[in-house]
């Protein structure tokens, strides 16, 4: 899938993650998390898995994590990707 527009998903509330995606050359992941030291690698792996599942190679994605579970991260990344499709 080609990322053609900027879009957002999620919130900055506890247990959620705010996700912003925009067009880019290559895959660039910018992660801010309250648990970056403990789970940063795991969160990045999950983001990459979702991007792989949608065949997204060119994207700038920023995540502001507030302690979201893996299923929430998957949901918010997917939502942000699918939202930009309609723009």
């Amino acid at each position: 899938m080609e990322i053609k527009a900027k879009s957002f998903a999620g919130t900055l509330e506890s247990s959620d993650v705010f996700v912003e995606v925009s067009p880019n050359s290559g895959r660039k992941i910018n992660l801010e998390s309250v648990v970056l030291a403990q789970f940063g690698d795991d969160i990045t792996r999950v983001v990459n898995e979702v991007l792989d599942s949608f065949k997204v190679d060119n994207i700038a994605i920023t995540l502001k994590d507030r302690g979201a579970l893996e299923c929430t991260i998957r949901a918010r990344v997917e939502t942000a990707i699918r939202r930009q499709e309609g723009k």
Partner: protein
Amino acid sequence: MLRSLLFLPGNNPNLIMNGGILGADGIIFDLEDAVAPDEKDGARILVRNAMKALDYGSVNIIVRINSIDDNGYWKADLDEVIPLKPYMIMPTKVSDAGYIKQISAYIDEVEKRNNMKVGSTKLIPLLETAIGIENAYNIATSDARIEAMFIGAEDLTADLQCERTKAGNEIFYARARIVSAARAAGVEVIDTPFTDVNDDEGIVIDAKYAKSLGFSGKASISPRHVNAINTVFSPTQDEVDYAYEVLEAIEQAKAQGKGAISLYGKMIDAPIVMRAERVIASAKAIGIAK
């Protein structure tokens, strides 16, 4: 067993992740009123991912979908959650049997598309309009998917053009009508939430009243009310003990060839035996009887 059903906003990860430990027999992921229109997509994707990943144990998962009058959201809701096999789907603002048939036909399509057994997804229609209440029996018998009925008093009282009160006199007719319709159709029936989340006495009074009318259980919008609802809709130890005595008395009567028997001076007949059997079944379901 559905003594308590707890509503959880479908776009709130913090509540959704804790849904299994809040004490309710069932949780309702709400994709309708609790979710803003521009977050409908995010909510249904979040609920689908949560249902796929999280272990809710024995808690029954129900998903409240959007009305068929709302922009086609309801089809997208069903597309996302049906493959995860929720315990029941709650259609909203159900007005007549045709409404249920329309939803059931689309669920047929989704089940086929996902190689599921057609008819395996069950329904708990939400009746929250005057016309829905008037059509309660036709709705309850409209489709084999229907396992329970649910009354929503907030929208209903708006439709009835009356004030929603704690006493609930304004919804007495609607409550009685939906209970009668559900029991006639052989399905369970769930009462509307008590919306003052800080009134710990009021919830007990309201739940007891609902039980006295014949409701199987009651919904809640707050985890704070769940324990009170569970307590009210659970048989007491005295009720369980009496139920066992009734069944024992009946067995003795049969053994002695007696056609009729009394217990504590009261005639034991078929309705009392049926009630005793229901009490014991409920007690077993919640683990307070063997």
